[in-house]
C-alpha cells in the first residue's frame, strides 16, 4: 500500500478529523486510486477500529471520533469516486423502534455499517412501523432493515415491527437485523428476525454476510 494511503488509515484510526482531509488530498495528488484510498485507507481502518471496540480495547468515544474522521476523508474523496463506489454493498434502513429514544448504540451501528460500504438511511428514534414501511416503499432496493431497542419495555414494539415486516409482501427481498442491550439471539429468533449481533463491529460483519 502506498505510504500516503497508510497515512490516511492511521489518521482515521486515531480519529484525526482535521488532518484526514488534507491527507486524502495528498494521496490523490500523488496519483493514488480513489477507490483504493477508500477501501485501504478508510474502510479497512474502520474495520480495525471495530475489531478493537469489540475486544473492549477502545470505547464509544474513540469509535465515534474515528468515524467522524472517515467522514471528513470521504467528503474530500467523493468527487473523485465513480458513482456508486460508496455504498456499493447496497441500501440499508436503520431505526430505533417506537417508544424508544436511545440512539447512541444505533448511531454506532449505522456508522460501522456505513463504513463497511453500505448506503445507510437513518430514520432516527421513536420510529413507528408505518414510517419504516413507507421508507422501504420509497427505496425498494433496500436490502436490510436494522432495528434497535434499549428498553425492555420497547422490546414488544420491536416484536410488532418485525411481525409487520414479516407480513409484508416484500419480506423476501429484505433481511431484518435487530440489536440493543436487552436483545438476545434467542429473542431475535423468537420474533422472526434474520440476524442479531451484540455490538456495532459485529453488526457490520453480519450485514455483509446477510447480503452475500
Amino acid at each position, binding site marked *: 500500500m502506498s505510504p500516503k494511503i497508510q497515512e490516511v488509515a492511521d489518521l482515521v484510526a486515531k480519529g484525526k478529523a482535521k488532518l484526514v482531509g488534507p491527507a486524502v488530498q495528498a494521496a490523490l495528488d500523488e496519483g493514488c486510486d480513489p477507490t483504493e484510498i477508500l477501501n485501504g485507507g478508510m474502510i479497512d481502518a474502520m474495520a480495525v477500529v471495530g475489531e478493537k471496540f469489540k475486544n*473492549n480495547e*477502545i*470505547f464509544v468515544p474513540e469509535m465515534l471520533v474515528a468515524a467522524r474522521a472517515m467522514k471528513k476523508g470521504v467528503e474530500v474523496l467523493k468527487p473523485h469516486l465513480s458513482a456508486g463506489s460508496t455504498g456499493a454493498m447496497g441500501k440499508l434502513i436503520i431505526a430505533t423502534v417506537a417508544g*424508544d429514544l436511545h440512539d*447512541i448504540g444505533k448511531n454506532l451501528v449505522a456508522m460501522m455499517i456505513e463504513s463497511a460500504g453500505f448506503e445507510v438511511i437513518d430514520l432516527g428514534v421513536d420510529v413507528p412501523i408505518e414510517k419504516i414501511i413507507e421508507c422501504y416503499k420509497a427505496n425498494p432496493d433496500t436490502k436490510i432493515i436494522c432495528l434497535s431497542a434499549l428498553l425492555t419495555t420497547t422490546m*414488544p414494539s420491536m416484536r410488532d415491527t418485525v411481525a409487520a415486516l414479516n407480513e409484508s409482501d416484500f419480506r423476501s427481498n429484505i433481511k431484518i437485523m435487530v440489536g440493543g442491550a436487552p436483545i438476545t439471539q*434467542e429473542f431475535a429468533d423468537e420474533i422472526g428476525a434474520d440476524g442479531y449481533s451484540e455490538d456495532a463491529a459485529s453488526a457490520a460483519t453480519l450485514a455483509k454476510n446477510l447480503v452475500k
Partner: protein
Amino acid sequence: MEQKIKITKFQKKIARETVFQLLNCKEDSPTYQQMKEEFEELLEPVKEKLAPEAVIGFGKVPEELVCDKLKLGEDVIYVLATVGKEVSRFSSEFFDEGDFLKGMLIDAMADACLFAMDDEIEDELKRVCAQRHIGIVSRLEAPEDIPMAAQKAAFDQLEGEKNLGISISPSYMYDPVKTSCQVMRVSEDATVFKAQHNCRKCKAKGCTMRNIQPITITVQNKDKTFQIVSKEYETILDAMNKQGAYFSAVCGGKGNCGKCKVRLLSGELEITPADKKHFTQEELDKGYRLACRAYPTDDITISMTTQDESGFSIQVGHGTQEEEDSRITESGYDIAIDIGTTTLAFQLVGKTSKKPVASFATLNRQRAFGADVISRIQASCDGKKAELQKSIQEDLMTGIRALIQEKEIEPSQIDRIAIGGNTTMGHLLMGFSCEGLGVYPFTPVDIGLIERPFQEVLGNTYLDATVILLPGISTYVGGDIVSGLYDCDFGTNEKTALLVDLGTNGEMAIGNCQRIITTSTAAGPAFEGGNISWGMGSVQGAICNVKIEDGKANVTTIGDKPPVGLCGTGVIETMAELIDHEYVDETGRLEDEYFEEGFELAKTAEGKKITFTQQDVREIQLAKSAVRAGIEVLLRRFGVTYDQVDAVYLAGGFGYHINQEKSMVIGLIPHEFDGKIKAVGNSSLGGALRYLTEENAKEEIHRILERSAEIDLSQDADFNDLYMEHMFFE
C-alpha cells in the same frame, strides 16, 4: 415382544366440549347454535363409523429410537390406538362435496374419540403395571419428544397390520390417519404413573386442547426445604414468584444478569442458550441453570444458590439514630414510609414529640420481578400487575406490623401514613396500569397527591388510617424526589442547590425557592453493583473499601467476612484506585497486564479470584458519564457555574456511603464541588416524615411542584456531546 394386549371395548366417547374446543368454537360465537345442531345430527352416524381399537405391549428400545430421552435396550411400553378408516372416509365424502363444515366436524369428532380412548388405555396400563410391580415415568410422543421412527417401531413391535389392520408409509405416517402411538418409559418404582398426555412440553401455547399436568418443584434453600406446585408451562422463577417464594431476579428474567442461578439436584432441565452463556461446561454438568430460563417438564429438586441478603444494609433516615424522650406521652402516631425500588424504610412518628420513635427496613420483594423500574413496568404489563400489588402490600404490612409491635401500641393509634416513592412504585401500589410508563412519551396515570383510606390502598382493615402518597413531577421524577426536594428545603432556600439521587435511575434537580429544574438520567445499576462481574448488593462479605499498593489490593469487607464480591461503594473505590495508580488510562483502557483477566482484588473463601475487568470499567464509564452529563446539562439550563451552586445533596443509600473524594476522582461529580457535598441519606423518607410533622407541608409541596420544570435529556441538544466527553477519565 413378550406380551401384547388388544383392547376393543371402547365407549366411543365424543364430548361436544372437546370437539368445539378443537374447532375453537365458543359459546358466544354466532355460529354456535348451528354447529350444535349439526353436531347432534352427526353424532349417531359418526359413532357408527368409529371402530376404536388399541394394542399395548412391552418392548425394548431399538437403535433407531435412541435419543437423549431413550437409551438403547431400555424397557418401554408401546401403545398404538386407532379409530379406523371408515370415519375418515366419511369426512372425506363431505369435503369432496364441498360441505366443509360437516367434514371438519366429523374430523374433529374422530379426534375427540381418539383422545378419549386415552382413559380406557390408561386403565389397562394401570392394571398391567400393577401386575408387574412397575411404574410409568414418562409418556413420549413423536415428533416432540422422540424421533418419528417411533411410529415405525411401535407398528413393528405391536404388529399393527395384523392386530389393527393399519399400514405405515415410508415417511412413518399411519393409514388410517386417525391413529396414534406413544412410548411409555417404565421404572421399578411402582408408585409413579405418568402415562397422561402432558402439554407442558408443547410450545403450542395457543392450542385449544391445552391441558397441563401439575408438577412439583422441591426447593432446598440452606437448611429449609419447601415444595411448590406448578400448574402451567412456566419458568422456575415464575412458578416460585407466583407462590410467593422470594427470589431476586436482577434483570427481570431476561437471562442476562445470571443472578438467578439454581442447581439441579434431581430430575431434568434442558440446557438453554442462556445457560451456555453464563456457565462453564463443568458448571452445567454440576446442574447449574438460570431459573428464569428453565421450563421444568417434570418433577425436579433444585437448590437455591442466591446470595444471602439478610445483611443488606438499608438506609433509614439521616443516619442519626432516633432518640426517644420517655417523658413525652404521644397522643397518637403517624407512619412515614419510603418505597424504594430495592428497599423499603419505615418510621413511626410520635404526634406529640413530632419525632421518629421506631424504625424498620426491609427489602422490596418486588425484586423478584427485576431490579430496575423498567423491569417492574414490564412485568406489570405482562399480566403480573396483581402479583406486584400484592407483593408491595404485604411488604408494607410487614413493616407497619413491626413498628406497632416494637412500640407495643394499638393499631387504632395510627392516624396517617405518608409515602414517598417513585412513580412506578406508586402505580404498582395503587394498582394503576403501567402501560404508559414504559414507552415514550411516558404518561403516568396519576401523579398528584393521593389521599385514600387505608383499606383502599392496603386491601385490609388492620388500620383505620389515611394513606397519603406524595406527588411527583413526571414518570421519571417521582414522589421520592419531590419528597427529597422538600426535605432539602428547595421550597424555601434562597441559594441554589443541587440534589442528586444516585440510584439506577439517577434523578437530579437544581434550584432554589424561585425555580427548580429536574431531570433523570438512567445510569443503570453499575453503582449498586449491577452489571459488574463481581458486583452485588451491600451484603455481608461484599468488598466496600479498596486500597492499591505496589500492584496489590488491600480490601475491607462488610462485616469483615471473607470476600464474596463487590458492593457499589467498593466498585467506585476500585475504579478510583485504578485511575489514581494509572492502571487505566484516560480512555478507560486497562494496562496490558490486566486487560484480559482483569485486576485481582481478593480471593473468595473457595480461592476464586475476585477481579475488576475491562468490561466493568466500560460499565462505569457509561454510568458515571450519564450522571455527570446530566449534572452538566442541569447547570447549563439553570444558567449557573459550579461556584454559584451553594450545596450539593447526595441522596440515597449509595450516596450516603460513597467516598466523596473517590467519586470526584472518577469524574462522577465535578471536583469543583469539593467541600459542598452533603450526604443526606434517605431524603424521600425524610420528606415523608416532615410532611407528617410540619404545619404547612401540603402548601410547601405544592409550591415545589409549581416551580419545577423537567427537561428531557434525550431531546437536549448538548447532552449527547457531554455524554461522550465525560466518558473519559480526567
